[in-house]
């Protein structure tokens, strides 16, 4: 039945996986890291590309009591600094740590660009807003690797994304190194590990087991 659901053009789409390493940098040392990333990544001649995104995470939960613990999260994001860019929905699977031979976290990943009414649409589908935040920072790329250095802000008043309503979370920027690729391309992990080595000791990018984080 699964196959019948997909339009003929989609049957060939391979499921994408996100390979991920994470770390953080204290705010005071952010510029040193940006400087180093600028040297290491492509497009060194341009100043780092900044982003300012609002992300809202919507949850769909079974109303039957037996399956309360099951739910699906859709992460809806749009750029605050680029009003004409489309919104998009991101679905992320459970991050797998894997064995020692694997250098990165791996999780299913699906990015779907969509029209701006997505929030209302999801609510009508039965989703509800679980949490939201604003991410401000910089992004770099090297080949197909993507590096983001960003700060997370809480919204003091719901729904308002002006700078005055934002409250920074912690005193660090989150640093993420990721590649989205079809399943089974394990050598990406090696590339990512080598890249992460070059950021030490400034930032230590690791595969952080999400299940252990409290």
């Amino acid at each position, binding site marked *: 039945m699964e196959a019948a659901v997909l339009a003929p053009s989609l049957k060939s789409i391979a499921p994408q996986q996100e390979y991920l390493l994470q*770390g*953080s940098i204290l705010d005071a040392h952010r510029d040193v890291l940006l400087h180093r990333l600028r040297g290491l990544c492509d497009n060194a001649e341009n100043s780092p590309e900044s982003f300012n995104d609002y992300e809202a995470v919507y949850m769909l*939960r079974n109303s039957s009591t037996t399956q*309360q613990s099951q739910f699906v999260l859709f992460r809806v994001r749009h750029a605050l600094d680029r009003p004409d860019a489309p919104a998009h929905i991101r679905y992320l699977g459970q991050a797998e740590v894997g064995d020692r031979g694997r250098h990165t976290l791996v999780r299913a990943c699906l990015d779907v660009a969509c029209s701006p009414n997505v929030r209302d649409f999801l609510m009508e589908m039965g989703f509800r807003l679980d*949490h*939201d*935040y604003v991410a401000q920072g910089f992004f770099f790329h090297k080949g197909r690797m993507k590096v983001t250095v960003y700060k997370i802000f809480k919204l003091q008043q719901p729904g308002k994304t002006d700078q005055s309503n934002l409250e920074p979370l*912690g005193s660090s920027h989150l640093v993420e190194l990721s590649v989205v690729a079809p399943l089974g391309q394990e050598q990406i992990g090696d590339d990512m590990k080598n890249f992460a080595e070059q950021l030490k000791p400034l930032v230590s990018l690791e595969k952080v087991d999400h299940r252990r*984080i409290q």
Partner: protein
Amino acid sequence: MMQAPQTKEEKQLDSSLDDLIHRVRELKQSIASFIYKLENDYQNITWPSLMESFGVLSSGLSTTKRLLKTEKMPLLRNYVLFPILLSPDRDPHLEKLTEGRVLAFNHEVVPDYLRTKPEPEVEEKVQLLSVKASSITPEMAQKQLTMLNKITSNVLDLINASSDVLDKDSSQKNALPQTSSASETNMLIAAVTKGMRLRRPEPQVQMGGPQMPGMPGPPQPQQPAPQKPQMPGSGIGRMQSTVKTNIKAAASSHPYQRP
């Protein structure tokens, strides 16, 4: 009978000359290859390999020098080279021996090649300098010497001082590489993956039920949202252990204080 010792001496001379020629040839070859490298392969030359070539050359020179000083080497300065015949004609044998550098053994080249003293101008300069040196009184020399020592030691102090500062800088960098914090990392990851500390306290749908192990927990609206950031790593377990040891230490000290 008279001929025997002479032949022995001659033999020794021959063999030592052969040795010397051999050494010089080797030296010449390494110089030639070095020059070749510099001229033709300079793009690929690296600093370490350049230094290595210099090392080879200088060791070649010093072995040649040592060879000249060995016991077996007859005192070459006792031998006189006496040009019997100078000829303006081209000498193919000589040309071959010198690899085409000297074409003929004539009046022009002989003074240069058979020179045993420096050129007159050079000699003059040396003379001038030695006269100047001898004109300085020992006290003067001493004075100048101490002056130079003083300047040198001053410069040395300066260099040492700044190198200390540099070392300190780098050691400081090494000493506090605290550019990231594991607890912050965990807090931020928890926020982006599970929405921790990002949820609003307002009560929404009442949720309960068992949590699946390994799954992010459902939002707990009952819980007050501004939680105290609990630093992972500084667990409660460790706190307890310090208390325990303190009590133990106190208990063990008591019996001795009692009368």
